[in-house]
């Protein structure tokens, strides 16, 4: 179980990006974090991943504190961030550096098969399309079999069709080993398609504004009335979170300028 206890982050320049987020995530659960820009979504994710440790509160995974990147936590960034000097297969196997060669090759092959890119194994990253590259990035993060996978707006740079395709694909992959997924997104549809729970965040400082359960069976029909109903709830919550933010922004105009650099 992943537990966040009053996780806060104040950057050295004084920007108060995250103001105490508490959250418990069960193993295998999918949580979407949504919110307007500047509400600390990415900061929260980076704190969980140990890339930018929290300055207040704590992140614990199975009662072990996370203060730097942890082997049970994988990360997928907004950009694929493949290493251009490694071919696709070596990129996927990047996190398996210290395993025996045979095991590495076998796991990489299995992962590539799973994301449907076996035929691209020997290609360079530059030869892939955006969607393919992001699939390789997901495979790379999943190959070390993390218990928690963090995704930071993973599909936001892709076109709409590729995006829905990859959302389904991600759920497919998730079903294999059922890792905990935490997906930061600003796409309401994406949040509802993927998540068991949608956390709506509001800015200055970033905190959880509302929490919406998505109690729909998978696979979810994006056109169904139930989907629409949840979507409306999320949209209303988002709307309210931003209204409050607008009034807060007037009282604290300075933070915004510096804060914009961080997310």
């Amino acid at each position, binding site marked *: 179980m992943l537990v966040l206890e009053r996780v806060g982050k104040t950057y050295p320049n004084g920007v108060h990006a995250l103001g105490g987020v508490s959250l418990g995530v069960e193993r295998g659960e999918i949580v979407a974090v949504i919110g307007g820009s500047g509400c600390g979504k990415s900061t929260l994710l980076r704190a969980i*991943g140990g*890339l930018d440790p929290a300055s207040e509160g704590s992140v614990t995974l199975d009662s072990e504190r996370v203060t*730097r*990147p*942890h*082997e049970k936590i*994988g*990360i997928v*960034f907004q*950009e694929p*961030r493949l*290493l*251009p*000097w*490694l*071919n696709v297969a070596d990129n996927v196997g*990047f*996190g398996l*550096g210290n395993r025996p060669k045979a095991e590495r090759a076998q796991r990489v092959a299995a992962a590539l098969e799973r994301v449907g890119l076996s035929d691209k194994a020997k290609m*360079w990253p*530059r*030869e892939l399309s955006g969607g393919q590259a992001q699939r390789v990035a997901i495979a790379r993060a999943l190959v*070390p079999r993390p218990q928690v996978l963090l995704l930071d707006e993973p599909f936001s740079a892709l076109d709409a069709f590729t995006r829905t395709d990859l959302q389904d694909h991600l759920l497919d992959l998730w079903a294999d080993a059922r890792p905990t997924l935490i997906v930061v997104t600003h796409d309401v549809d994406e949040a509802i398609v993927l998540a068991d729970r949608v956390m709506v965040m509001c800015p200055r400082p970033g905190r959880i504004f509302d929490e919406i359960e998505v109690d729909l069976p998978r696979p979810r029909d994006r056109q169904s009335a139930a989907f629409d109903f949840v979507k409306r709830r999320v949209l209303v919550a988002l709307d309210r979170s931003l209204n409050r933010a607008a009034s807060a922004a007037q009282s604290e105009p300075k933070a915004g300028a510096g804060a914009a650099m961080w997310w």
Partner: protein
Amino acid sequence: MTVAAQGTETTSAHPAPGKHWSRLARPMLGLVLPVVLAVVWEFVVRMGWASGRLAPPPSVIFSTFVDLARTGELQRNTLVTLARVAAGFGIGVAVATVLGAAAGYSPLVRRLLDPTIQALRAIPSIAWVPLFILWLGIFEASKVTLIAVGVFFPVYLGLMGAIQSVDRKLVEVGRAFRLSDSEMVRRILLPAVLPAYVISLRSGLGLGWMFVVAAELMGASEGLGYLLIDGQQLGKPAEIIAAIVAFAIVGKATDWLIVLTAAPFLRWEDVVRSE
């Protein structure tokens, strides 16, 4: 992608004849101007329209080149020059790599070291020659030092800049996968820096060849630069040009050697390749 496209085109049922022609002919096109000029000059001298004493025609240069090669003088002098460049290049690259890497990696070292190095860089390197001769004598040491100084700056600057501009996002991937410091250097920084480093080595080598001429012109009893001076003092322009041609060949060959050695490591580069 362009390579693949060309490959399919040439193997397809209807190879475009125009493409074939242009692929062979394009490099040849660059030869047209020098060859025409050479032939014209040869013709002018043969016809007796010009004496060709100070600007010898190609045939004379060629026979001088062959004569120098037959006596072994060309090879001996080339080897001497090559050895100087190799020594200077080796020392310059070694020092530049260590300092450039340190300055690129550590802001403290950079703040400490870089202003001094930049100040030294502003001095035209040839200006050091009198000092080097006073310090190190007129023989090999001062020549090799001058070459090393010439090689140092581009390599230092290139490597420091390359390390500083390594994509922060890729470094973060390394962090996310918990690479140790040494793994980070080996698996992220080194490959990321390599393309720029190779370019800086090539420009360093170019300066090395420039400075060996300067060093040999200022006093040498052997080397290609000595052939230049010898040809000037004895009034043998053909010998001068033969030495210049030797410089061009050896310089290009060593540059090519770097490119060839680095090529297998840089196949991933996303560059526009022109045939």
